[in-house]
């Protein structure tokens, strides 16, 4: 039950994008098309899960025992950057279609603050290993949800007479603002 709550909390109530402002860059950049937005969401979820596993291990097995908590950021980001690059190369080699669908989004994820944010939140919230993974899946699902909704809306807006200066990033931000308003309805739904 607790795991389910963690999942929904991360996915909806405390949505990374709409409540924590994490991962805004890809949220604005890659939300033009539903297909690529969804792939981006999947790739992010994938990296989030891996990250939550690896950084948890590093933090609890290497940093904490040695009193090296201050190396958190440095070690986490190194791990994330290298892992992502490695996974990208691997996918590219193994399956071109998969690379086209998913892999090309991976470099973009290195600098997705949602990933590092996730790793830090897991530390901050003192999640166990399993909880951390569930949190990662939830955050990824939330990111996918937000970016896919946004892509759907933006595809619709392609057909609309949006004032020219507001096309692109501004309208995306405004829609995100309204979405954030709508998500406020979930406030207090789960407090984890």
């Amino acid at each position, binding site marked *: 039950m607790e795991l389910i709550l963690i999942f929904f909390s991360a996915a909806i*109530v*405390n949505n990374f994008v709409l409540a924590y402002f994490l991962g805004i860059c890809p949220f604005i950049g890659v939300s033009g098309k539903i297909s690529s937005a969804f792939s981006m969401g999947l790739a992010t979820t994938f990296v989030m899960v891996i990250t939550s596993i690896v950084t948890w291990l590093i933090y609890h097995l290497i940093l904490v025992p040695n009193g*090296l908590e*201050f*190396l958190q950021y*440095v070690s986490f980001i190194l791990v994330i950057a290298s892992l992502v690059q490695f996974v990208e190369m691997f996918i590219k080699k193994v399956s071109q279609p998969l690379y086209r669908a998913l892999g090309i989004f991976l470099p973009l994820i290195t600098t997705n603050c949602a990933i590092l944010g996730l790793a830090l939140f897991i530390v901050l919230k003192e999640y166990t290993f399993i909880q951390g993974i569930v949190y990662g899946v939830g955050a990824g699902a939330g990111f996918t949800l937000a970016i896919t909704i946004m892509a759907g809306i933006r595809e619709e807006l392609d057909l609309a007479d949006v004032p020219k200066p507001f096309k692109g990033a501004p309208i995306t931000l405004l829609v995100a603002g309204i979405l954030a308003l709508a998500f406020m309805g979930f*406030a*207090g739904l789960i*407090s984890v």
Partner: protein
Amino acid sequence: MKLLVHMLATLTIIGILSGGLLSEVSKWAKPKIALHRKAETEKAIFLVQPDAKSQKKIETVDFEIYRVFDENNDPIGYALPYEGNGFQGNIRLMVGVKNDLKEIVGLQVLEQTETPGLGTKVTEEPFTNQFVKLVAEPNVGWVKGAPPKKTNEVQTITGATISSKAIVDIVNGGLQKLRDVKNSGVEL
């Protein structure tokens, strides 16, 4: 091969330098940070126990609690940091009670993630001052929309009922825990 060595060397050296630098800086910063933390806690303790002149952490229990003393070094009560669920996330507060655990002396909210401008009103004086000299037995109650009639009640904040109730719940929970510990005979 040369490239490989180059790559290895670059990252390794950067890593070593980074590790070294940070470790040194951290060595300098750590005591300061600890000091700040301590000062903060102390400040909060004296805020919830305005008559106190000194405090001491109680080491006999497995949770954080402070014994506070007046100018004569007589114990006058406790300062208890306690946390629980608010409207959106954790609320951590410090509550000061008298020795008999029957009257609250003061309350400070230490950490919260309530709705800015609304739920955050629970951290402000109009609300927290209600807890000064509040009877805590059998527990703290609340009323909505009107000034409280009983001595153990506080009025919730309009529009932030849930946050207000959360504070009351956390206070009750903390006091209950204290009472339980005391009743079980542990010396506080």
